[in-house]
């Protein structure tokens, strides 16, 4: 700070001498420095100026005033944003679709069965998600038999009406609840299914009646999509 004020005062004394109005030369205090600066500027322009500033107009754009250049800039910015947005969306989608079920799993997820081809009193075994599913078209006699059982006497108490949506159609997973063998239909002591591996007997509603199995045969999710079309899964 001190050195600057010294320089200023030196300048001011030199300029004031050149202007020949030394009474304006003030001591180097705060306000006086501003006055010196003005005098320096006026001195510069009053002297005969031989320095010529070149004309830069040649370098200026011809269409400086119109919107073409900023439209170009905004278009480029917007295009970059567009591509980035599309790329980001595709990336996120790829990561998310990674988590959803693959096509081979979805193809196994549902099975449709035509019930019209199954006569009364017959079993049909279909494969669903790698497991057998028993479909039995029960006769009215078998329905009565299933309803006549005293539920409280069962190992896994369950009403027959809780196990079927339509009484004439019994749909259940054909996997023994003991160790996972496939029971044999229309056999066993209770007129239902019999597991040959360890001798579990299931009745006509698929409930465990005798043998080592702890639970009734499992009921998969299913619905009757129309009068004689069954969709499992």
């Amino acid at each position: 700070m001190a050195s600057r004020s010294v320089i200023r005062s030196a300048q001011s004394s030199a300029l004031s001498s050149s202007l020949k109005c030394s009474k304006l030369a003030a001591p180097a205090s705060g306000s006086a420095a501003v006055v010196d600066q003005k005098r320096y500027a006026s001195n510069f322009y009053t002297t005969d100026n031989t320095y010529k500033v070149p004309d830069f107009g040649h370098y200026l754009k011809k269409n400086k005033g119109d919107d073409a250049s900023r439209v170009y800039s905004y278009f480029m910015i917007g295009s970059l944003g567009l591509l980035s947005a599309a790329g980001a969306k595709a990336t996120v989608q790829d990561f998310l679709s990674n988590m959803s079920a693959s096509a081979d799993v979805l193809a196994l997820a549902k099975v449709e069965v035509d019930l019209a081809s199954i006569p009364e009193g017959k079993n049909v075994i279909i494969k669903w998600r790698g497991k057998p599913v028993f479909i039995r078209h029960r006769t009215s006699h078998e329905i009565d038999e299933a309803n006549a059982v005293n539920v409280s006497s069962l190992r896994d108490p369950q009403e027959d009406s809780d196990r079927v949506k339509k009484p004439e159609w019994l749909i259940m997973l054909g996997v023994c609840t003991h160790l996972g063998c496939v029971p044999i239909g229309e056999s066993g002591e209770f007129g239902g299914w019999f597991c040959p591996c360890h001798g579990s007997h299931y009745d006509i509603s698929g409930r465990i009646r005798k043998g080592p199995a702890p639970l009734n045969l499992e009921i998969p999710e299913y619905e009757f999509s129309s009068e004689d079309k069954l969709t499992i899964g």
Partner: protein
Amino acid sequence: MAISTVIYNTFFRRNSIFVGTVLFGAFAFEIGFDSTIDKFWDARNSGKQWKDIKYKYVEKDDEE
């Protein structure tokens, strides 16, 4: 009025319209891009994909 001024006033003057145009453009671009690449891929691999040879095996599939 110059075309650039019209474009500027239509799309770039308001930021909401600018961003909206960019997002909508991304949506449209993706559809076009995907279908173009898919067409190119199918043309490049014609005769090799399952949908091209399915008719040879589809009856066998029904029997299973």
